[in-house]
């Protein structure tokens, strides 16, 4: 298990999500593919956090300060914030889907043409 393998798995998730976002016509399916892309990015962030140590911890021997350990968790903090924002984004996106369905009686992404031209 190396950083490269983790990045390949993250890239595979991201690419599958990208295909879904471009190929699907149902808006809910597009949102599901977006979640896959989020997860791909997060796996990459956690992978970097796991296989690297920040500069604050290099060359320290014996006792290391607590703030240095906390700065080693930047990748984890990134994941916490992205997960929270993804949850907010999904709630808002599904509200928009409901509003769109109420206006158009459709969830096809090709029907969202009100602002075209």
């Amino acid at each position: 298990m190396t950083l490269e393998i983790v990045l390949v798995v993250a890239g595979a998730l991201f690419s599958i999500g990208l295909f879904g976002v471009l190929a699907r016509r149902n808006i809910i399916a597009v949102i599901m593919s977006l979640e896959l892309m989020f997860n791909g990015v997060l796996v990459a962030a956690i992978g970097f956090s796991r296989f690297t140590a920040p500069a604050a911890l290099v060359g320290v021997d014996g006792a290391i300060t607590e703030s240095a350990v906390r700065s080693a968790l930047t990748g984890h903090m990134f994941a916490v914030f992205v997960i929270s924002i993804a949850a907010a984004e999904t709630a808002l996106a599904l509200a928009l889907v409901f509003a769109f369905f109420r206006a158009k009686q459709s969830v096809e992404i090709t029907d969202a043409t009100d602002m075209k031209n």
Partner: protein
Amino acid sequence: MSGAFDSGPIATLAFFVASAITIASAIIVVTQRDLVRAVVALAMSFVGVAAIYFILNAEFIGVVQILVYVGAISILIAFAVMFIGDLANAGTLSQSRLVSAVSGVLMLASIIFVAYNTDWTAIDEVNDPDAVAGLVGHYEVTGGSGGENSIVVAGNDVEDSRGGALVDGSSHIGPALIREFVLPFETLGLLLIAALIGALVVIRGRQEDDAQEDDAA
């Protein structure tokens, strides 16, 4: 990419199994014509990603992943699928199917190319066991007389450690949230409130219009 950060064959095997489950479920999500089945595959994929987090020593993120993604977002999307119920042509793929497939493959190829052709020299330096002395191995937090607590390394035995960059990272996430990351944390709370109110406004807006029209009539 070896030495201090090796996690042993069992963790590697578990990582590959979790990755296979995740990627297979993700492929089902983007190809399945039945949206309800796609949601179930999406939840499965989230569970696989949570397993990857656990294997990568991110226990707290794994728990949050299961709580938020599997427990909340999957259910929210399943709710939307069943509420809207426009499943007749849910599986239709757009006409740009070929372009989408080419984009996905090109993206994956470029990520693999970058991952294997980048010289992760800086990371390799840090992977030196001497450089991360104190990170690999067991350490404990001792109460300081004032100011910051210091963390004393109990042992640097690489063989005996879990081989993680942080043996016990979860207990430091809370202090980090209210010290180094307090401003983003509070901003996040504001964002969540704004998103929830926004979702309510978007959902309810038309109903209020209808009510006003009913009153006028």
